[in-house]
């Protein structure tokens, strides 16, 4: 519970009004193991609907954005085939006002409407999401480490699929444990300070082992295998798609 509160506080403290709305603002950096351990749902799906509104949350009207995803594959936790993910804040729309400010619906974005660093998706986006447990009365969630836990999946003409977050997967194997959900001593697979950050064993294929040396986007299948092995190493709930939400 304490973790959830701190995560909620973390997200709320990123409510800032800065003109460069897509910049990567300071949030705790997560490596892949801590990201996997922190998430209670990890899945691959594509966005089918986006709806912006205001909701009564924590005794106040809050801007929220509802994203509906068609889930293809669950890696951790139980998710429904169609899952609605509700995040605080509204996405910016890249339009610029007269002063060069970001706008939304023709109005300059302010701290009242946008959460800086919150990931945003568009209909058709295919993503791999690491979601924290719902908070604020179980209504809202967000990806672990905000923009870090949202990986956009692209498919090459060759059929190969790749995943990357908006910081080009920086720190997935090198960021130190930040203590959000685990201590460095709890590490089982990712050891940022070691010469080879990925521990041997855990049934990792050679391809998955090689991910730690790669830069930029990562091959989706190998990446998912690695996430699955990390989840298993921590005794996490195996991913499954269920008929109704938990």
């Amino acid at each position, binding site marked *: 519970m304490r973790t959830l509160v701190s995560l909620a506080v973390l997200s709320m403290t990123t409510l800032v009004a800065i003109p460069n709305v*897509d*910049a*990567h603002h300071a*949030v705790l*950096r997560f490596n892949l193991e801590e990201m996997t351990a922190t998430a209670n749902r990890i899945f691959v799906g594509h966005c089918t609907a986006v709806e912006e509104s205001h909701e009564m949350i924590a005794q106040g009207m809050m801007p929220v954005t509802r994203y509906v995803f068609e889930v293809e594959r669950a890696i951790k936790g139980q998710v429904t085939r169609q899952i609605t993910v509700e995040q605080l804040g509204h996405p910016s729309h*890249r339009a610029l006002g007269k002063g060069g400010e970001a706008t939304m619906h023709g109005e300059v974005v302010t701290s009242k409407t946008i959460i800086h660093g919150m990931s945003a998706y568009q209909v058709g986006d295919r993503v791999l999401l690491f979601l924290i447990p719902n908070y604020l009365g179980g209504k809202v969630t967000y990806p672990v480490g905000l923009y870090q836990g949202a990986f956009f999946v692209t498919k090459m003409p060759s059929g190969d699929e790749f995943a*990357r977050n908006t910081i080009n997967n*920086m720190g997935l194997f090198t960021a130190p444990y*930040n203590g959000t959900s685990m201590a460095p001593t709890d590490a089982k697979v990712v050891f940022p300070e070691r010469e080879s950050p990925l521990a041997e064993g855990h049934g990792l294929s050679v391809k998955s082992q090689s991910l730690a040396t790669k830069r930029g986007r990562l091959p989706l299948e190998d990446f998912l295998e690695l996430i699955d092995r990390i989840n298993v190493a921590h005794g996490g709930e195996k991913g499954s798609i269920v008929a109704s939400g938990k």
Partner: protein
Amino acid sequence: MSFHLSFFVAHILIAQIVVASQPRRVIVSTLPAVSLPKSRPPVVLARLIKLRLLAVVLIFLLGACAERSGTRNTPQWVAGPNVGKLDLMSVDLLDAKTGWVVGDIDPGGAGGAIYQTTDGCKTWRSITHTDEILTTIHFVNRTTGWVTGLAGRIERTDDGGLSWKVQRNEREGEPLNGMFFIDERRGWVVGGSGLVLRTTNGGETWTQTNTGRIEDLWAVRFSSSEHGWIVGENGLILATTDGGNTWAPQTSQTSRALLGLTITPSNVAIAVGEAGTILRGEGGSNWSVVDCALTVTLSSVAASDKVVIAVGSRGATLESTDEGRSWTAMSALLKRDLNSIDLSDPTHGVAVGRGGVTQCLQ
């Protein structure tokens, strides 16, 4: 030291073989005098030649790409001061004294910074705050430079980095990985999924060039305003002969990701990448793989005159003094990954990397 000794011994042995096989020839050499046999029976002579030839071959094999504990007599690589604790992504040197570095932002909330040295890597000071993860920095003179960010932002300074003007706003999903300006007006930027940007007015406007590529692009360099190269994922090399209007793929002989690129003054292109990959292309074409038996990732490479230095994972530092034909691995000063290197001249350089580490050639 052992490297120089190897060459010295090899040269002496060669001299001996030449003398032994042609005893009457006068040797003109700057090597120290060697005591040579005046006459030998033919069988013994043949055996001696064979043994010494074998020794020469072995010594050369061990010398090339072998790890050595020292460096050239002068200068030496030394560990520099830590520049903060964050990962440093790019370094750019104007001269032996002046340079800049950029990198990650502080998860603690302090954001990031652009750092400058004016004393040749001895000290670094934060000159500007930044709220974006900056991937590259490049100056064309003491005042004018640019930075690129992971979110697609490009900024320009005209006061040596004290203040910056945004020239290109953030674009989601457009990480910018590499940048090069040949003068104050003409520059190129490369990024994720085949992104190539070009400016001819100092960055006031940026035009996206359609390369038809989808690979991540990691580095771009030009040898003139017309001739340039880009390297990227899956061993991709693109070349242009019209200033970046059009790009054509070249055969690279590798499928490894190429992460760093440099062009020597005599127009030899050298690319480095995953699994110790080193490619060399005379005139920027006919690329060949330089076999170096390394497995670490090489992230960046820089050249000055005939000296070429590459850096990479776990502090890997390789040096070539013959424009990339042969390389020598040096003992890593630091065990942290080095992400970027620049040389101001053959005897001055800086490499930067994970956790704010710096390594200075001086």
